[in-house]
């Protein structure tokens, strides 16, 4: 009636376990792959002053700093601060990434769907 004969170990077990470990590795890899965000939030002295969607070009500026969205990435293109660290940060588009300009007290943060706090 039953075709399967139970055994403790067969040589195919090695293949099976290796395949499964690869499966787990791939799952973890894809789950952790960084994903692009949806919009850039700009904070001035801790207060949110603007939200720029990443899918279209746009910009925000004040007398000290200029933030530009182009080709789905956001970057600081002009600033009058001395070290220009924010400008050197380049263009960002990954969820959770940020550019900080301390002298001008400006923070640019990428947000996106699925950015939920983990409640354990």
């Amino acid at each position, binding site marked *: 009636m039953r075709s399967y004969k*139970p055994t403790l170990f067969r040589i195919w077990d090695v293949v*099976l376990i290796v395949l*499964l470990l690869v499966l*787990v590795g791939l*799952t973890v890899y894809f*789950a*952790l792959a960084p994903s692009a965000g949806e919009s850039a939030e700009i904070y001035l002295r801790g207060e949110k002053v603007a939200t720029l969607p990443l899918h279209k070009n746009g910009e925000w500026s004040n007398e000290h700093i200029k933030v530009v969205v182009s080709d789905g990435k956001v970057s600081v293109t002009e600033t009058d601060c001395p070290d220009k660290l924010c400008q050197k940060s380049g263009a960002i588009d990954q969820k959770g990434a940020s550019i900080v300009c301390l002298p001008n007290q400006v923070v640019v943060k990428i947000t996106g769907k*699925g950015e939920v706090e*983990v409640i354990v």
Partner: protein
Amino acid sequence: MKSKDLARAAILLAVALILGFLESLLPPIFPMLPYARIGLGNAAVLLALLWLGAPYAAVILVVKCVVIGLFSGAPTMILYSLAGGILSFGGMAILLRIGANGVPAISAAGGILHNVGQILVAMAITGVGGIAVLLVYLSLFGALAGVLIGVIVYFVDRATSRAAKGASE
């Protein structure tokens, strides 16, 4: 033959429920990984798969998940245990059909798939991909627990089929 299968299925379901309840009373093995459980009840599901085939075993699995979820006071866990259970069950059923593997390895595959299913549900519910890191630890643990269950099932099966032979001769 049918009523005999039914009686066996009922016994296996009872065993699955009792083992599941007992396990839910025990403290977690690793305090930092409260969801890492040996899953003793799965021994009964695997035995049902061996002896009675996939349909009976599937019913036992679903009833076990729902009843234990309801009675242990954590109904939301039903979703997790069902997702893990169904994925694990499907994998084990296919591997048994192929028939190229030993029982402990099939059970280990079930243990790993169980954790994969649970983590996928957790990711879908919370939307946090980072949970997948847990899978590294959970799947290793699941594999070890699966091997343990598989060895138990192998010896239970051997003992009972000898007893059955002795009784029928």
